[in-house]
């Protein structure tokens, strides 16, 4: 099962709740500052470990995360 996420920097406030929620530890707080002057979350998945489980999105207070998953995974929309 593979997946990926997209983080909308306009919404992200760098709270890092997603960083703690990701079971694969694929998120981290970025060094750079966003337009809104927060250090946003960054998705770093060089090895393609993201399962598209969506836990990051579940806890994101700013609805900044979009989650994609491989079709075959066939996961229901949450």
């Amino acid at each position, binding site marked *: 099962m593979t997946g990926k996420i997209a983080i909308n920097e306009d919404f992200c406030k760098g*709270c*890092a*709740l997603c960083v*703690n929620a990701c079971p694969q530890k694929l998120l981290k707080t970025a060094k750079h500052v966003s337009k809104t002057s927060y250090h946003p979350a960054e998705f770093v998945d060089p090895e393609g470990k993201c399962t598209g489980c969506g836990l990051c999105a579940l*806890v994101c*207070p700013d609805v900044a995360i979009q989650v994609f998953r491989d079709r075959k995974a066939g996961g229901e929309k949450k």
Partner: protein
Amino acid sequence: MEVVYERPRSLFPVATHYCPGCGHGIIHRLVAEVIDELEIREKTVAVAPVGCAVLLYNYLNVDCYEAAHGRAPAIATGCKRVHPHLVVFTYQGDGDFAAIGTAEAIHVAARGEKITTIFVNNAIYGMTAGQMAPTTLIGQKSTTTPAGRKPETAGFPVRMCEIVATLPGAAYVARVSVSSPKNVVQAKKAIKKAFETQVRGLGYSLVEVLSQCPTNWHMTPFESVKWVDEKMALYYPLGEFKVPKEG
């Protein structure tokens, strides 16, 4: 790849004014998702509180009232009585629902008013910057309990679910939190049940959501969700206190 999670349609695509990590954002999202799933956006009326969520209407794409502090249930009642076919809900903080609005909170439930309340318990007054709430825990510091809340002078925290559950008019009463993915899933289930209770005309429904306020707790967002689990949930047990008889 398929999009498996994205912004609910009932939520405007704008950034919120909430602090980083604030639970309000999650709860807004859950409400929006439930509205989308029940396909009730066009017949939903929200009543925003006075509190950090006063600007709720900047985010939720439904008809909205902005209430006076604590009076959302009364406004919701006025609206629902005029339009019984609408889905009317109040969204209220602990100051709003459990302090100044206590009488309205109790009586909207006693009347079995067919509305839903999303009660965001963050154990503090967020909007006014950190004063004690009726739900502030014993020992918890706030700007009006600088030495920690002492029951001898400031009394004990109020458990609204337990109170409301005693009222026959209340059909669905649950307490949830948004401190972890699992709890968020639970929270959404409860919110959905609450709205369904209303749609089915069974009576008043209340979901109390334990919610982190990192800013006024002076914690990082991560510390704050841990505090919800480790401290708040002890005094405010999660669970369903009342479910409609027919399922």
